[in-house]
C-alpha cells in the first residue's frame, strides 16, 4: 500500500546527507545512464547501487518491497519490443506468425530493461531515505525553491495517508443512506466514479480550510520567513553528488572501452 514514511535506518551515513544533494546525485546518476542503450553500463550501475545500499541504511528486502512495480514495467518493455522492434537482426529464436524474436531483439530488450531499472532505482532510494519535511526545508534553503510553494506542497502531501480513510468514510456514508451497487457491474462502476469524485471534492474542501488555517498563522503576511530547522549543505554533500557523477561516468566508460556502447541518439 501507499507508504510515505522513510524506511532507512536512522544515522546511516548516506541517508543523512542533505536531501537536495541526494536528489541531485540521483538525477545525475540516472541521466548519465539514459544516454546509452547497451546492457553493460546499466548492469554495472545496478551493481553499484546495490553495493551502496547499506550506506543508505536500507535493507535489500525493503528495497524489493518498494521496487516491485518496476518488475511489471520490465515485463511491459519486453512485450513491446518483441512485437514492435525495428531491428530484427541476429539469430532467429522464435517465429510464430507475426512474432519474430531474434537475438538482436532480446539484446535490445535486455538493455532497455536494465536501463529502466538503473534509472529508476536511485529515485526509490532517495525517497525511501528522505523525510518529506526535510526535503521541503532543503529545497527552500539549499536550492532556493520558493518557500510558499514548497510548504504548500508539503502541507498537501500530509493528506495522502488520510485519503484512504476518507474513501472508507464516504463509502460508509453512502451505505448508511441506502446507496449501494448490489451486484450490478455498471452500478458498481458508477459508484466507484462518484466516490472518487466525492474524494476529490473533499480533498479540495479540506485544502480550502487548510489555506485559511495557514493564513491565520501568518503564512501570507509578506514578512520574510525564518527557518526553525536548518538544513546544511556540507562538503560531504558535494562529494556525494560528485561521486554519483563519477560512478555513472565510469559505468559508461567501461561500456565504451568494451565496445558495447550504443548512444541513445545517433
Amino acid at each position, binding site marked *: 500500500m501507499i507508504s510515505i514514511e522513510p524506511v532507512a535506518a536512522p544515522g546511516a551515513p548516506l541517508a543523512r546527507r542533505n536531501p537536495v544533494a541526494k536528489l541531485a546525485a540521483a538525477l545525475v546518476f540516472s541521466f548519465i545512464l539514459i544516454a546509452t542503450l547497451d546492457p553493460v553500463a546499466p548492469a554495472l550501475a545496478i551493481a553499484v547501487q546495490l553495493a551502496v545500499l547499506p550506506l543508505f541504511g536500507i535493507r535489500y528486502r525493503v528495497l524489493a518491497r518498494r521496487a516491485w512495480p518496476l518488475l511489471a514495467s520490465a515485463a511491459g518493455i519486453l512485450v513491446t519490443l518483441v512485437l514492435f522492434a525495428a531491428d530484427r537482426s541476429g539469430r532467429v529464436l522464435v517465429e510464430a506468425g507475426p512474432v519474430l524474436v531474434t537475438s538482436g531483439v532480446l539484446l535490445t530488450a535486455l538493455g532497455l530493461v536494465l536501463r529502466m531499472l538503473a534509472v529508476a532505482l536511485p529515485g526509490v532510494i532517495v525517497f525511501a531515505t528522505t523525510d*518529506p*519535511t526535510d526535503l521541503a526545508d532543503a529545497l527552500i534553503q539549499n536550492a532556493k525553491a520558493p518557500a510558499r510553494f514548497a*510548504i504548500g506542497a*508539503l*502541507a498537501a502531501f*500530509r493528506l495522502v*495517508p*488520510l485519503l484512504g480513510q476518507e474513501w472508507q*468514510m*464516504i463509502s*460508509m*456514508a*453512502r*451505505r*448508511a*443512506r*441506502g*446507496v*449501494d451497487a*448490489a451486484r450490478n457491474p455498471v452500478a458498481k462502476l458508477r459508484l466507484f466514479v462518484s466516490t472518487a469524485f*466525492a474524494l476529490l471534492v473533499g480533498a479540495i*474542501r*479540506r485544502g480550502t*480550510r*487548510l489555506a*485559511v*488555517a*495557514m*493564513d*491565520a*498563522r*501568518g*503564512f501570507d*503576511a509578506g*514578512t*520574510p*520567513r*525564518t*527557518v*526553525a*530547522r*536548518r538544513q546544511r549543505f556540507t562538503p560531504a554533500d558535494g562529494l556525494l553528488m560528485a561521486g554519483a557523477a563519477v560512478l555513472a561516468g565510469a559505468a559508461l566508460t567501461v561500456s565504451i572501452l568494451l565496445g558495447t556502447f550504443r548512444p541513445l541518439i545517433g
Partner: protein
Amino acid sequence: MSAVELRGFGWRHAGRKAWAVRGVDLRVEAGERVLLLGPSGAGKSTLLAALAGLLPEDSGEQEGVVEIDGLDPRKARERVGIVFQDPETQLVMARCGDDVAFGLENRGVPADEIWPRVDEALRRVGFPYHRDRPTAALSGGEQQRLALAGALALRPGLLLLDEPTANLDPAGAALVRQAVAGAVDVDTTLILVEHRVAEALPLVDRVVVLEPGGGVRVDGPPAAVFAAHGDALAESGVWVPGRTVPPRHAAAPAGDLLLTADRLGLPPRLTPTDLAVRAGEALAVLGPNGAGKSTLALLVGGLLKPGTGRVTAAPELAGADARTPPHRWRAPALAGRIGSVFQDPEHQFVTGTVFDELALGPRRTGQPEAAVKGIVDGLLERLGLARLAGANPYTLSGGEARRLSVATALATAPRLLICDEPTFGQDRQTWRELVDLFAELRDAGHGVVAITHDPDFVAALADRTVTLERP
C-alpha cells in the same frame, strides 16, 4: 493587548441571500475576556473569522467597520490568534513541534528563539508528548491542545476560541479550559464562543449575546446579564446557568430485543464489547476520547465488518434478513432498519443541497415523492433549517450541520437509531427539539443508541448507560 471595535458590522457569505451577522456594534477593550453567545446560526463563527481577518473579500459582502487596534483585521493578522472548532483542519505540519513553529517562522521570529517558544507553548497547554510526535497520531483532544499551543506561541494580543472543547470528553474539556486559563497572559484579550455557559464562566468577565440578524442583544458582566435577562435568554436558546431542562424518560418499560453484540471488537480500535438494545429504550454510550465508541457505532450500524465477535439482529428488526449480520445487508434494507449519525456531520453528506440530503434516504427506501416532501418539510421546520433548504450542506454553521446529519437519519424513521454525539454545538432551543425528537421516536417503540459526552443529554433522555474504557 489588542482592542476590538465593530461599528454596524455585517457579513453576507457569497451565495447566500441572508446576512450571517448584521448591525453589530461592539467595543472590546484590551485585556477583556468576553464570552460570545447566541443561538446556532447567529453568526458567532463568522464574527470570529472577521476579527481574525479570515473573510476574504472574494467570499462575501461586508458592511460597516471592523477594526483591531484601529487596523483592518486583514492587515492586523499578526496580533490575532484563532483556534477553530475543528482542530483537524488547522494542523499544517507532520510533526507536532514543527506545527507550533510554523506560525513563528511565518512571522519571522529569529531562528534561535523559535524552539524555546515552541517548548514553552507546549508546556503551557500541558501537551504530553515530545515535539517529534507525528500530528497524525493525536486524538481529537490532543489535536485541540496542539492547535491552542500553535496560537499561543505567537503571543497574540487577541485570542479567539471557537467552541474549543466540542467533542472532548469531560476530563479533556476541563484540561483545555485549564490550559486556556493558565495560558492566557493577563493582558491578552480573549473572545470565547461556547454554548455551555456554566463551564466557560470562570474564564470570562463579560458576556455578549448576539441576536440572529440583529446585532448585539445583551452585553455586560455575567452575573448582571443572567440576573436581568435570564428567562428571556433561556427562551431564545441560550444555556443560562442553573436552568435545567425537564427530563424525558421512557413512560413504558423497554420492549423486545432488537439487536445484540457479542464480544464485538475491531483491534486495535475497539476491544471486545457486549451490548444489547431493546425497542422503546434510549441507551447512552459513554467513555473517554479514543475508547472506541465511534468504532462501536459503525460496527453496530452495519457499516464496518467486525474484527471479532458478531452482531445479531432480532427478527423484530431484521425481518427477512434475520440470519445474516447487518454488515452484509443490502444498503436500502439497512437504511430502512438502522439509521446512523456520524460523529463528524460532514462525513455523512452525499448530496449538494439540504433538501436533497434529507430526501435521499426516504427515496432510496422507496417512499412516494409526496410522502418524501412531507417528511422533509416536517424535519426542516422542527430543526430550524427551513430557510436553508437550498443551501449546500458544507456551508452550514457547526450546529446546523449537526442537526441536518441527525435529521437525515431520522428521515427514514429506522427501527434502530445510532447517533454519535448528536447534541454537540447546539443551543438550548435546538437541543431540546432534538431530545424531544429522540424521545418521540423511542416512545413509538424504536430503539435509540446515543454516544455522548454531554451529561445533560444523558440526564434528560437515557434510560440506561454503558461505559467503554480506553483499550
